[in-house]
């Protein structure tokens, strides 16, 4: 059986990074020796596997744009009914389902890197529900992984249903991001609550956008001023040139005025003469 399970996770998924899952495997092995083989394959996919199986079983499409909450609800609804099916399935079927799920995985891996904590939680939750009950709860402690997959376990005395677990992880991520934003945005103090910090962030973004608009207006003004100035230079030059030309024309006219004027006088006199 062990050989088969080894094969099962080596063949269809050579791209998987087995190292980070080995730690989780050993940890979970001591908790659940019986279900080790079945769930061994699950954790080789960094816990995408149980959800993807449910997904392929209970929904026909796995669209890429599916939000994480939809994903979790899907799996939560189906997780209870999936238990008997999962245990009754033969290993051959598992492999074929894994292969089918591979496409879904690959296509959604880009989107769901942020979803891995929730996914891992439902995986953990299912194993909690598989009958270990108190024993699993008392043995658990919180563990953080350095990589993206965050395994968050419930503390003693806290609710372990998947909803609150998922909520807690989401809140943790939101808090972490708010802390990052707090460093970026000036004027955010740690003592302020989340609502106040969000208000500060909104004000900051608005002021930045206004500054960008104002500075692009300044650029426009500078460019029109520059053009206007250069244009006035050109006009001055043109005017100067025109003045010179006018002077030339005057000179010519004065010189040739006698001829033209003479012709004109002659012409007028001739007309008068005829009359």
């Amino acid at each position, binding site marked *: 059986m062990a050989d088969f399970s080894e094969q099962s996770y080596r063949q269809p998924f050579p791209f998987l990074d087995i190292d980070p899952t080995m730690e989780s495997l050993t940890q979970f092995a001591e908790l659940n020796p019986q279900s080790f083989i079945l769930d061994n394959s699950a954790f080789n996919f960094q816990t995408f596997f149980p959800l993807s199986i449910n997904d392929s079983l209970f929904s026909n499409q796995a669209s890429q*744009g599916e939000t994480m909450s939809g994903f979790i609800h899907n799996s939560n609804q189906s997780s209870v009914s999936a238990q008997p099916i999962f245990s009754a399935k033969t290993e051959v079927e598992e492999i074929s389902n894994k292969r089918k799920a591979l496409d879904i995985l690959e296509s959604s891996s880009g989107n769901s890197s*942020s979803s891995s904590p929730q996914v891992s939680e439902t995986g953990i939750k299912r194993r909690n529900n598989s009958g270990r009950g108190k024993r699993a709860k008392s043995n658990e402690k919180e563990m953080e992984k350095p990589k993206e997959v965050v395994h968050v376990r419930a503390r003693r005395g806290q609710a372990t249903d998947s909803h609150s677990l998922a909520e807690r992880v*989401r809140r943790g991520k939101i808090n972490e991001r708010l802390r990052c934003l707090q460093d970026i945005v000036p004027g955010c103090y740690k003592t302020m609550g989340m609502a106040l910090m969000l208000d500060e962030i909104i004000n900051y973004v608005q002021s930045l*956008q206004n500054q960008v608009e104002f500075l692009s207006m300044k650029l426009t003004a500078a*460019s029109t001023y520059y053009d206007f100035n250069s244009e006035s230079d050109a006009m001055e030059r043109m005017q100067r040139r025109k003045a010179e030309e006018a002077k030339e024309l005057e000179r010519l006219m004065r010189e040739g005025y006698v001829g033209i004027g003479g012709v004109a006088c002659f012409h007028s006199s001739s007309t008068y003469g005829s009359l």
Partner: protein
Amino acid sequence: MNNPHHLNPTSLKSRFTTRFLRALTKIRAQKPISSSSPTEIFRRYRRIKVAADKSMAYSVRSRRIWSRAMLWKLRSRSYRRQDPCSGRRSGKTNQAIMKKSSNENTTTRREDGVGFVEEADELRQLVPGGETMNLCNLLDETAHYIKCLTTQLFSPIGKG
């Protein structure tokens, strides 16, 4: 060594500056001498502002949701101006997904269970493309957007 001001030629700052400078020179070459009527000035201001947004969005490409949303907005506006009768001509993939999800979300109010709905909605209006994001992604995008805005303001074009 050549340009001590741009420490990294592929950094966001230098990419934005290059693109924006190119766009600015193009704008100035188009209308070298224009009348100083207010409409002309306003038109030029709109062009410069669009050039700034566009060069910023192109420097970030499609790596971020807000840049994709901004590019889509710019493209659809330019298509509408060129040919007002045409339908949706731009690429379908991102735009279709975003439109679909924005249609879905307009009817349902995003109650993330965390309790900051009003502020979150306001933030969604500020950040381009924010209507389609849940709170977690929204905060991510806000941080990157703030970083890009400050790059714009402190670029050596003289904006800052």
